[in-house]
């Protein structure tokens, strides 16, 4: 019962708005620090690869982007499902705010992969299962955002786009296992084989640092975006009015 109360309180927009505002810097600054440390470790400290030489350093940007492009989609789909089933508006707000961030990570993953692919494989793009399914992920994000913007009524947009988000989540295991199920030009998994990663420790730690940094960065950006989304949705509510009045009064005192 206590947990239920806590969830209800968390899902109340004014409470969430305040809490997200307080928490954002606690994610943003560690994220910045981790990304700086990871980038230095990856670009300077890590030794060149035995096959790829210096070119392998693209992994430090490509893998975190690709990981988050999928992770964000799962978060978006779960939020949308929670919103659909329990009719929690905040969950829909989270899903709507996550989409552009996920789309950005997908673009980053595709672009860094292409820049690496040209010198290493000999081609920017090939239509193998991994690359194609990641491109489908980008289209899912774009489709989700386009579908939302097609509705004037927010709750209708929530419902229609929520179904699309839930349906699209089938693509996530396809992306992940594409390199195992089919033969592809893209290489197989390196670090997700937890027991025995195919990368040495001095190359691995900057990568894990970058992944953690990117993840915290995502949480911070998501918090900022959800606050904006909540404000837009609740613009006519009493708590937003009171908050605005207070901030105007503060300005007057100054």
């Amino acid at each position: 019962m206590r947990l239920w109360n806590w969830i209800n309180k968390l899902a109340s927009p004014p409470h969430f708005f305040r809490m997200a505002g307080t928490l954002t810097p606690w994610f943003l600054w560690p994220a910045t620090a981790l990304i700086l440390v990871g980038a230095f470790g990856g670009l300077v400290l890590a030794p060149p690869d035995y096959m790829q030489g210096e070119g392998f350093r693209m992994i430090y940007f490509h893998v975190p982007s690709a990981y988050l492009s999928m992770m964000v989609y799962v978060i978006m789909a779960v939020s949308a499902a929670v919103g659909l089933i329990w009719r929690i508006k905040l969950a829909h707000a989270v899903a709507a705010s996550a989409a552009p961030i996920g789309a950005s990570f997908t673009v980053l993953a595709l672009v860094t992969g292409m820049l690496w692919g040209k010198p290493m494989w000999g081609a920017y793009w090939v239509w193998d299962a991994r690359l194609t399914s990641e491109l489908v992920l980008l289209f899912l994000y774009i489709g989700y955002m386009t579908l939302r913007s097609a509705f004037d009524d927010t709750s209708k947009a929530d419902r229609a786009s929520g179904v699309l988000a839930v349906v699209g989540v089938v693509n996530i295991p396809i992306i992940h296992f594409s390199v195992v199920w089919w033969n592809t030009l893209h290489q197989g998994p390196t670090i997700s084989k937890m027991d025995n990663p195919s990368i040495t420790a001095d190359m691995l730690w900057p990568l894990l640092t970058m992944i953690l940094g990117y993840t915290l960065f995502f949480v911070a950006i998501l918090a900022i975006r959800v606050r904006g989304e909540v404000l837009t949705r609740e613009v006519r509510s009493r708590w937003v009015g009171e908050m605005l009045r207070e901030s105007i009064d503060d300005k007057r005192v100054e």
Partner: protein
Amino acid sequence: MTPRRRRMVIVGAIFLGVATAVTLGLQGMQESMLYFRSPTEVLSGEAADGRDFRLGGMVREGSVERLTGDLEMSFDITDFENSITVRYTGITPALFGEGQGVIAIGRMEGNSVFRAREVLAKHDENYMPVEVADMLAQQQQPEELSTESSTN
């Protein structure tokens, strides 16, 4: 059934339906989802005659020959059971080399020669510094350690 229960079932049913459809669809397309064919598959007649396809495998050790100082070259692609000789004119990517994974795009010329118009290097999932790679090579085959030229 409460309304919430009903919504849960609907969302679950939509998801399961789409997942099933996609799974069946991908099963049906299994053949065309494969990015390349192995020499064994090609020699047993699985690739269409006279049409472009992708041939993938390892570049057989000692098979790379550069002809006439031109960009003309030939090498064997092997899957350790069968191999096919590939002829190619052009520049190879950085990771191309003997013992490396490779994918050639082109078509069969006769029964045993593959004429490639594009050659892609396939990278594997292993990352390590040069020293570690040397150490591994020494452990595995101390007598065969050749001073093969690096591909970079």
